[in-house]
């Protein structure tokens, strides 16, 4: 496979999966986002900050229309970004991943990356709907979240290197090592400073849907990348054979 084809395959698979992920969110997380924002509206009405007038509703609906419209576009950009990282790691690790077909290999890698750069950080810093989060701490929270993703991801990479170096009967030590490493990091990293004051059924429901949707995204990205990779790699090998 040529380099430009490699880039195209990675971007196409990430973007496609991201757009599908954006549409999935209309069903999964959007109802919770609407409920949470309506709670914010009610709080504003009660405090006298806003009045529930037709003008307010018209402005609010236009604002939400812009935000909801952005879900699919932002999903595509999210897919391009996350898919690019996935594609780079897949290119470097493909030969050592278990599985006969590239889709199998991509699914294995997606599972590992989902765990390292999504689920473990998510367990420490779970997604929150609007109404949760003090705007004054957003930069601090962003640094915490990104730092933990980097710690977990780079830690997984380091232990993968170790996994490749050690003998076959000791490979389990790499998994144990990563578990200890990330367990310590999990405890050492500071807590989210903001208290959750929103109804817990709303927050829990949102978090469940958020995690489910991201998980589906990783599966879709892996299936598309693996399928495209397999197709173009096979074509490239055939061309080489034919001279």
């Amino acid at each position, binding site marked *: 496979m040529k380099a430009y084809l490699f880039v195209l395959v990675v971007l196409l698979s990430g973007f496609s999966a991201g757009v599908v992920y954006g549409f999935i969110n209309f069903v999964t*997380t959007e109802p919770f986002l609407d409920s949470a924002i309506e709670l914010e509206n009610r709080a504003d009405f009660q405090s006298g900050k806003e009045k529930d007038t037709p003008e307010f509703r018209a402005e609010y609906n236009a604002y939400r229309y812009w935000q909801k419209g952005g879900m699919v576009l932002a999903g595509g950009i999210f897919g391009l970004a996350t898919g690019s990282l996935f594609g780079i790691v897949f290119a470097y690790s493909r030969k050592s991943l278990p599985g006969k077909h590239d889709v199998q290999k991509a699914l294995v890698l997606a599972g590992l990356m989902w765990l390292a750069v999504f689920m473990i950080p998510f367990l420490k810093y779970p997604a*929150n709907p609007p109404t949760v989060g003090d705007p004054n701490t957003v930069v601090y929270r962003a640094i915490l979240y990104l730092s933990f993703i980097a710690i977990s991801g780079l830690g997984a990479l380091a232990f993968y290197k170790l996994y490749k170096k050690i003998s076959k009967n000791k490979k389990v030590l790499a998994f144990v090592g990563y578990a200890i490493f990330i367990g310590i990091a999990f405890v050492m990293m500071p807590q989210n400073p903001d208290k959750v004051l929103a109804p817990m059924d709303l927050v829990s429901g949102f978090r469940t849907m958020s995690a489910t949707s991201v998980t589906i995204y990783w599966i879709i990205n892996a299936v598309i990348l693996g399928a495209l990779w397999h197709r173009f790699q096979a074509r490239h090998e055939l061309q080489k054979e034919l001279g």
Partner: protein
Amino acid sequence: MSQSKHMTVLDSKVPVSAVVILAAVFGFGLFVVGYDQGHLLSLVIGEQAFKDLYIHELTHDMRHAAGFPCH
């Protein structure tokens, strides 16, 4: 080594040019979706971008859905 050979992806030899492009897409995309608070548009429309927050609002729902701190 010819250009085409140099640009060929082998499992053991991933081309640096492709990795650099994808790494740039990763960094830029992550910033747009997860962290921009008017920074990008401020390059075009100046300080007003930090008040309008167009990109922030456009990616608002995805930020929450994907787990990024939003506000």
